[in-house]
């Protein structure tokens, strides 16, 4: 077990760029098959061939997730409350 003075390599600041590089390398690897695997369209009858286009699953996964994170952020502005919100009037029972 590492002592608190010598943080695990995951937590060392100098390794951060390497971690990003590894992640980008994995993403590039995941995109390589696009050059030889053919995605068939799921809805040819409806004239939708978007899902057979180059890199569809990659950009769709990224943008929808980015969108969901952004939407959650906006919802948070309206919906977030301190986590003792419901306890305030609870006759002093609970929590520290």
């Amino acid at each position, binding site marked *: 077990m590492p002592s608190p003075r010598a943080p*695990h390599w995951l937590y060392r600041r100098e390794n951060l760029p390497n971690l990003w590089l590894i*992640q980008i390398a994995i993403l590039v690897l995941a995109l390589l098959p696009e050059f030889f695997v053919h995605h068939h369209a799921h809805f040819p009858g409806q004239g939708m061939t978007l899902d057979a286009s180059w890199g569809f699953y990659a950009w769709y996964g990224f943008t929808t997730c980015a969108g969901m994170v952004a939407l959650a952020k906006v919802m948070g502005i309206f*919906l977030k409350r*301190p986590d003792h919100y*419901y306890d305030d009037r609870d006759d002093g029972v609970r929590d520290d």
Partner: protein
Amino acid sequence: MGFAMTDLAWPPGLILLLGAAALPFARERLRSALILGLPALTLAAIWWWPLGTLVSVPFLDYQLELVRVTSEGRLFATVFAIMAFAGGLYALRQATTFELTAAYAYAGAAIGVTFAGDLITLFIFWELMAIGSTLVLWAAGTEGAYRASLRYLLIHLLGGVLLMAGIAAWVAETGSIAFTAMRPESLATWLILAGFLINAGAPPLSAWIADAYPEASPSGTVFLSAFTTKTAVYALLVGFPGAEILVPIGLYMVFYGILYALLENDMRRILAYSIVNQVGFMVVAIGIGTPLALNGAAAHAFAHILYKALLLMSAGSVLWMTQRRKCTDLGGLFQSMPVTTINGIVGALAISAFPFTSGFVTKSLETQAAANEGLALVWLLLLAASAGVFLHAGIKFPWFVFFQRDSGLRPPDPPANMRQAMWLFSFLCLAIGLFPQVLYGILPHPVDYQPYTLEHVVSQLQLLLFAGFAFFAMLPLMRRTLTISLDFDWFYRKFFKELLSEFSVRTSAFHGALTGRWRGRIERLVGNLSRHHGPQGTLARTWPTGSMVLWVAILLGASLLLYNR
């Protein structure tokens, strides 16, 4: 009754339900044997009776079908029994006997539902589940759990009332109590559907899941995550296949679960929101209603019970060892809890439907069904939601609990029985992913689907890896805060409470004014009386003897004058 063998048949759910009653009386070794043996015995009983077996008993004017073995029911009962076994193993040395008794009765009732051939039997087991699960919550023994259990019970009693009213109306309408496929076209069937949907965590009452489940003990939450919502999936699967209304309801649940989980800070509440998300997939598939879609819903429910329990076991181990539940307090635990971390990650990969895990081979049945029916929008939304599952459960949970910044906590892995339960479910998550034909073989409809095509594996990996990229790219936006998020439960936890206290403030003011006015009147009356009749009152004054004599003389004089004339 059909054939002689059925005289011996015994509803498999009763083995757990009645066996649970023996737990409080069993000593140490027998107790362990019962906890591990009862689910195994139940599993054997589930598979002992061939499809089509029927056990019925007369009740009033009806024949109750306590057991009707169908392929759907057997599938759900199987995973419920496996779940009870692993949950029992996980809870073996940590949970109270009270919790285990309640949990086994709860599991037995859930299995009872899956074998119920008629609506009355279904309803009885349905309500036993509500009681059992409430007791599991109580067993946590905290003030928060007690309060949450009352809110939980309230919602489930409401669901039970809707279901009972629906069943009564349905019997009045059709004269039959058989539990078969219905269409939501009359008041009766709408009420039954509403009763089922409340237990599934459908809008607007989805909040009960994230409100109640995370208040239970570490093992209690594992049990709770499995039975109620999946029994509702079973009931919808048998009762309302192809009901179109389920598609939008399910899509709402899918995104509700993702967005609320993204906002959440409590690790087990993240996973509770994720239950709504996953059940949403199944509800959509049931709404699509083709054999492939129904197979997908059933298979996904089977796989989901295993990986969600695994995730909650992992979270429960962290809670057990650290007594902390908020992401803001956790992080860096992978250094001292490697077993919990690995198993948590297997569960996270399985829920995200990574290739070679159980999620991949089951959820893809559902998305494929949407594609086959030409539902392009539904398919695109499910695809986005699949990416979102990785975002909110697949990465968020392990990242914030086991990695992120180092919290400095160095707890060891949990005790052996908790580790074994996690390994068992990790094994099953991977085994189903690697050998899907075994699960496909027991699905309700014949399966003609091959999940492992190069194209499918590649597209799924791309979708998930880029979803993960979005997570890390937007990590600053997801800084954990000490917050909860408002939901529909605000109405019954805050709005009506405030309304009530406002009402009592106003009524007490009114009451005060009213009593004040009457008190004034009475005081005035008393004052007047005492002024006239009191010690100093005009009418009660004591007069001197001299004036008495004078008055007597006057009276005598007057009588002389009056009578002697």
